[in-house]
């Protein structure tokens, strides 16, 4: 059997490329201050942890000035870690504001949310101020640069983190990992569904 013609392959490639164009819906809240890095390699790291394993402990500085340690929630709360790649970029800027209006969903599942990026505190301060008042702490994994992201295996080769979600139960065990395409915001229902499974 002969192979498909080159013209056919080109046409199909164009069709697929058109379908997969990254689309962004930037909020006017950020005005013209969002830097568009373009389409990035979807995933550029290798996980170093697995579901069912104890979550590596860490301590990071929050924007509020306090230090937060993962193990302080042991036996008290489920913990959702939301790594986003970088401040002032399109998809990241539209992710946490969504979580900010669903505190009740986290409360229902006895969970706290910790937002983490590898940006420094002043950058995170200025950026998150555009989102309104966040109910959850935002932590800086800036120095040693991306150390926590690296421990979990979500530090990319260019020094930013993946767009990743980890859910850690009250026993300190990782129950859910989502390392998605960095160019796409993960649907909220994926996170909510994973939280619901904690009860089972």
């Amino acid at each position, binding site marked *: 059997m002969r192979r498909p013609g080159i013209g056919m392959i080109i046409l199909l490639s164009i069709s697929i490329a058109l379908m997969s164009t990254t689309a962004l*819906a930037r909020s006017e809240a950020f005005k013209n201050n969002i830097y568009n890095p373009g389409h990035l390699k979807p995933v550029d790291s290798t996980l170093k942890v697995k579901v069912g394993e104890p979550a590596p402990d860490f301590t990071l500085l929050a924007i509020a000035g306090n230090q937060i340690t993962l193990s302080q929630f042991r036996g008290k709360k489920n913990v959702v870690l939301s790594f986003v790649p970088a401040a002032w970029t399109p998809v990241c800027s539209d*992710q946490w504001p969504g979580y900010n209006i669903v505190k009740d969903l986290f409360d229902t599942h006895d969970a706290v949310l910790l937002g983490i990026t590898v940006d420094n505190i002043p950058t995170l301060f200025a950026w998150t101020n555009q989102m309104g008042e966040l109910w959850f702490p935002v932590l800086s994994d800036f120095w040693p640069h991306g150390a926590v992201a690296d421990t979990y295996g979500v530090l990319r080769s260019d020094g930013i983190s993946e767009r990743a979600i980890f859910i850690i139960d009250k026993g300190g065990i990782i129950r859910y990992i989502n390392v998605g395409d960095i160019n796409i915001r993960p649907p*909220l229902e994926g996170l909510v569904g994973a939280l619901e499974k904690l009860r089972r």
Partner: protein
Amino acid sequence: MSYTSKTIRMATLAMAYSLAFLATLSFATGPPQKGDVLPNISIPVTPRDADKDYLGLKGGEFFKIPQIKATVVIIEIFSMYCPYCQREAPEVSRLYTLIENNPALKGKIKLIGLGAGNTKFEVEVFRKNYTVPFPLFPDEDFAFHKGFGEVRTPYFIGVRINADGTHQVFYSKLGGFGGAEQFLQSVVQLSGLNKGGAQ
């Protein structure tokens, strides 16, 4: 059918598909402006009876905005993830209430929201959080958003629907609308509703 014929047929189909996709998106370089027509988008009908009644839709799985039973339609392109949209949501709902409580405007001006990049679940979260009383539609794959020129959110578009089925955009603006009363006054004036001619 020979392999060559099959290849040509498949290539033609692929090309037609690509062109259809391009036409759907319109690859708008910007949002529709005053005097323009809307991008040719088909929106899945919401299963909510209240929404169907409000929009005056008569069956079918999809509808186009000019098919809405109204003289003026205000389209808000929003996102559940947009802080500005969140802050303004109560005021937009108040706009709906102002219209519905005004016998001269009720039925003539309708509101819809298109959730750019939002899934059905996310749109429902937004509706529930802000008790949004008008129909909201998910736009998970950004198809509508692309058709409207990939605007930032929130973005408001006003369209006048004429008795003969034609329509024209009369309002197209990024960002907040500066208060429900002021915005409604602008809509009434710019659409020509204050000069009569309602459908």
